[in-house]
């Protein structure tokens, strides 16, 4: 399977300067009476990336960093405030996009039989000429995700969390989707079940050339799944690189701290610095680089100007004034 080829292959998805702002101001009367200002939550603020066909881009970050908002923007559940999302042509005309949600209990209609849940997109999009062909396709999809055709007659409550996530995947594939946005697809599952679902997702990717955007806070899962990884902090990308590069040589201080804080089963209690402080409120982010209050490399420039996400010589992108400077010095000896 091709890896780390995001730069060469034609991108399936190109996102440019994407922003999504939410107006969370108090009601007008309250603002007038108490002199409160308008409040804008910049959940996503100027994010650009692209995803090559047949690969996985993971977006990682802590709660409130905007990763789930990006997922919802990609499938059209939110309207972007600014910026563009461009998909390339799919095999059947417009590219079909589907989403896998975190909670397999909330994302399946409890009153429908599983067979009907999976058949709905086929019927709505008229992908099969008649009911018999639709049924055959449903049976095929259920087998594909490791369930049996007989399971189509059951209701969602008869299945475990892992099996429900298999049903969600079957429903997504029923649309002949080529691009799946997966928002924390395994974080509600137990580890042994998580392994089953992750293996299934990679098998399907290989078999059908699927493209994934994978949203997760679990870095070891991300490492396992992705060709490229983007790290988000308060609505912006701080680093984006090939997975191998990012895990072997994290450059942004936030990425480093994030990697440093996760427990490592192979070397527990290694010497590490627990990250001090907490993520600031996205309503009133700090000026300059939003990470500067927690950053060990902070300098005067970081408090004033916001760093751009710059393309580095090795194809990674990085938004850190201190690291960019240091790398530039090393590259051009005085």
């Amino acid at each position: 399977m091709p890896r780390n080829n995001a730069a060469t292959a034609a991108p399936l998805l190109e996102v440019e300067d994407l922003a999504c702002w939410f107006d969370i101001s108090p009601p007008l009367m309250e603002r007038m009476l108490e002199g409160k200002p308008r409040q804008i939550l910049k959940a996503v603020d100027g994010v650009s990336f692209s995803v090559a066909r047949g690969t996985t881009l993971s977006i990682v970050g802590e709660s409130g960093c905007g990763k789930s908002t990006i997922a919802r923007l990609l499938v059209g559940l939110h309207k972007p405030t600014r910026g563009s999302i461009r998909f390339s042509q799919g095999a059947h005309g417009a590219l079909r996009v589907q989403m896998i949600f975190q909670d397999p209990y909330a994302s399946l209609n409890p009153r429908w039989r599983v067979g009907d849940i999976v058949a709905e997109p086929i019927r709505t999009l008229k992908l099969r000429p008649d009911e018999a062909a639709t049924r055959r396709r449903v049976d095929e999809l259920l087998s594909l995700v490791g369930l049996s055709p007989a399971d189509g007659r059951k209701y969602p409550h008869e299945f475990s969390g892992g099996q429900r996530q298999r049903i969600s995947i079957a429903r997504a594939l029923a649309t002949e989707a080529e691009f799946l946005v997966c928002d924390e697809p395994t974080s509600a599952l137990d580890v042994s079940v998580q392994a089953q679902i992750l293996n299934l997702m990679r098998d399907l990717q290989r078999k059908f050339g699927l493209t994934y955007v994978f949203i997760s806070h679990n870095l070891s899962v991300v490492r396992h799944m992705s060709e490229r990884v983007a790290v988000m902090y308060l609505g912006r990308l701080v680093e984006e690189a090939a997975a191998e590069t990012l895990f072997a040589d994290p450059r942004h201080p936030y990425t480093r701290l994030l990697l440093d804080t996760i427990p490592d089963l192979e070397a527990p209690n290694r010497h590490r610095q627990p990250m001090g402080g907490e993520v600031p409120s996205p309503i009133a982010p700090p000026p300059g680089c939003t990470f500067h209050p927690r950053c060990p490399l902070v300098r005067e420039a970081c408090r004033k100007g916001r760093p751009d996400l710059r393309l580095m010589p090795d194809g990674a992108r990085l938004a850190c004034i201190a690291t960019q400077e240091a790398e530039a010095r090393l590259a051009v000896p005085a």
Partner: protein
Amino acid sequence: MTHSAAEARGATPLPSPAARPVLEVRGARVEFPTRRGTLVATDGVSFDIGPGEILGMVGESGAGKSLTGMAVIGLLEPPGRLAAGEIHLDGERIDNLPPRRRQAIRGRRIGAIFQDPLTSLHPLFTVGRQLVETIRFHLDVSEKEGRERALALLKDVGIPAAEERINHYPHQFSGGMRQRVVIALALAANPSLVIADEPTTALDVSIQAQITALLKRLCREHGTAVLLVTHDMGVIAETADRVAVMYAGRIVEIGPVLDVIRRPRHPYSRGLMASIPGLRERAERLNQIEGSMPRLTTMPPGCAFHPRCPEAGPRCHVARPMLAAVPGEVTSAACWLHQGGVTRAAQ
């Protein structure tokens, strides 16, 4: 309970620290009577925790790890009940105490930390008020002394500007800070045992590390025994001294945390460890344990893991192995592999 009954329930003496254990659980069996018969949720659960020791308890949802914690605090949701077994705290049997005396133990001698800090705190009282009330309920101190102790506790759990924060309401704290307040509440009366049920699951990774480090430091400083219930093997690896792996209501393996992680002896623990994606290198496929944990209503005979076990033999289908020390090791496992092989017929 007679000696032989204890043996039958798998109450094998465990490797315990030199000091007298703070908590001893012997053959705990939690049952839920239902219209269609009695469901046995946990059975033969036995373990010790010494002073200042952290015992991690891992397993999948429904394995019985939270129920075990609840049985120890005496907060099993009726009709669930502890049908057999004994629970000793500081050498005193507590599972058969009347509810009133049981309540006096909760909070005073056993502290509790739950997953969601917001539901553990009352939204309409300041954290200071809640701390002082808890302290004065359990300890004979004046309002002023209570407040001093509350302040000291908040400082101890690392709340910045504690003098000011003591007058704030729970919603004014972030998730991580709230969990610190809950830890302060759990430690308010200086208990000898703390039950921490998924204390970091609702928190972000960077905050998780802060909370586990705090829990570990406090437990060492105060000599508090901790039962850490979680599904996150990473948290266990970083925090616990020993770990008990639960499957289908039973402890299948218990031993020093590094031994269990590096050399798991029970096939289930082995599968569990191998299914966690590594940070160091990337495997093409993750190891997966086929199938899922049996439901309480359809528990297989013999070893509950045999339908999913790659090494199961005829003996596993008919006889259920008890927890016993693996020959030559500190770790105990409930598996015929280490008790004479899987092929020998049951006696």
